[in-house]
């Protein structure tokens, strides 16, 4: 019986396994100074995941935590826009690429910083007809670089704002075997619940701790009188969370100012933390801190 793959030691001189090992080691080294890595994900798109990421990061930073955000949505990077830092240049230092700095010194990396114009999509050099062969691997490599080649320094929290869906979750789980947890975002919609259940199931299969479920846009909060009325129907996030056995982090009502401030590059919680939406966001931030047994300072 001829030798099989596992019977042959080494990699036959290609050095591929060694190089992959070195990549893994560099990533682990860089991540060792970051206490808690948190993935923010959803099922469907358009549930306000990125806006939530920005505001939760801001609220935690106000409690004295050092925050970083990885804008992992390579096709639709929006975190720099929401934080008003699109014009910041990234530059190389001896420690790696220096991340952009937003309000409260929140550090950010995003493909948006590398794209020359607003309308430039993320296109990769390579044979278009075979893109299905290599594109996924390349994008996983770019995400690896976002983690390992950025001089994050010491952070308390690193938020990973994932693109809609679950496609990237296995990659993130592999890149970050010590991923601290996932915050899963839905809205009061059966379609959203239908898909978000898949996100929860996959998180469990990948052994990713689930911090909890947030139901965003759970009602319309009037910026004038502060009352909250249904927007997409009755919020059912609590029932979904109970059904799936995950913590429910709460409902966040929709405030139109959140959207306009995101367009203006400012976290909503900066100016409206005492609004119903601001208070709901603060409660979610507290839950995230509590999950890691961090007391809000």
């Amino acid at each position, binding site marked *: 019986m001829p*030798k099989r793959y596992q019977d042959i030691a080494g990699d036959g001189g290609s050095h*591929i396994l060694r190089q992959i090992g*070195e990549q893994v080691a560099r990533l682990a080294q860089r991540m060792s100074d970051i206490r808690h890595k948190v993935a923010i994900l959803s099922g469907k798109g358009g549930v306000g995941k990125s806006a939530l990421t920005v505001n939760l990061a801001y609220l935690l930073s106000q409690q004295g935590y050092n925050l970083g955000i990885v804008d992992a949505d390579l096709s639709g990077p929006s975190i720099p826009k929401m934080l008003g830092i699109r014009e910041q240049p990234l530059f190389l230092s001896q420690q790696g690429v220096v991340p952009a700095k937003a309000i409260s010194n929140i550090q950010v990396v995003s493909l948006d910083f590398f794209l020359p114009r607003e309308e430039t999509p993320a296109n990769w*050099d390579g044979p278009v007809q075979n893109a299905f062969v290599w594109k996924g691997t390349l994008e996983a*490599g770019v995400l690896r670089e976002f983690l390992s080649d950025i001089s994050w320094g010491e952070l308390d929290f690193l938020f990973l704002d994932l693109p809609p869906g679950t496609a990237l979750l296995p990659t993130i789980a592999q890149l970050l075997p010590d991923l601290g947890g996932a915050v899963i975002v839905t809205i009061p919609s059966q379609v959203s619940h239908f898909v978000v259940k898949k996100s929860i199931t996959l998180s469990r299969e990948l052994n990713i701790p689930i911090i909890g479920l947030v139901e965003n846009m759970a009602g319309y909060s009037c910026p004038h009188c502060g009352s909250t009325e249904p927007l997409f129907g009755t919020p059912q996030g609590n029932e979904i969370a109970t059904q799936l056995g995950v913590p429910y982090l709460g409902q966040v009502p929709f405030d139109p100012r959140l959207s306009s401030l995101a367009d203006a590059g400012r976290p909503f919680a900066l100016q409206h933390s005492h609004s119903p939406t601001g208070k709901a966001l603060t409660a979610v931030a507290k839950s995230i801190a509590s999950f890691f047994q961090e007391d809000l300072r």
Partner: protein
Amino acid sequence: MKFLCVQCDEPMLWAETQGPVEGSLSLFFVCPRCGHKIALLTNPGETQLVKALDVKIGSPPPPPSPMKLLRSTLAQQHPLSPPPTPSIELLWTEAAQKRLERLPPFAREMVRQGVERYAQEKGYREITPQVIDEAKGELGSLFSFHKTPFPPE
């Protein structure tokens, strides 16, 4: 992927990489016992897959370069900026320092960095209230984080 010389039941060793030529890599492997050679030939998609792994087959890879994969494959991109010149030490005048300190604490560091970046790009060595005003004109959104207007001198 490993290669086995079936005749010798011996793992083949990498000998040489040629290419890519017209999108194709030629990877040569040789049996250390009988000298038999084979070549693995990749199509453009497979070549790009190797590139996507960010590895160099065979010869020792060059030292890692930050964001090398992204910078070598993103079709249209902003290059990374050169690092700020470390030798220029910027001096904040007392008046400029006082203006900065009147900002909300959460905004100070970001505004300080933005003003210093602007000053370095312009070749200034001293940051005065006038430089702050110039920076404010150029970097408007940076200064919109503070809850109150940037304090006048």
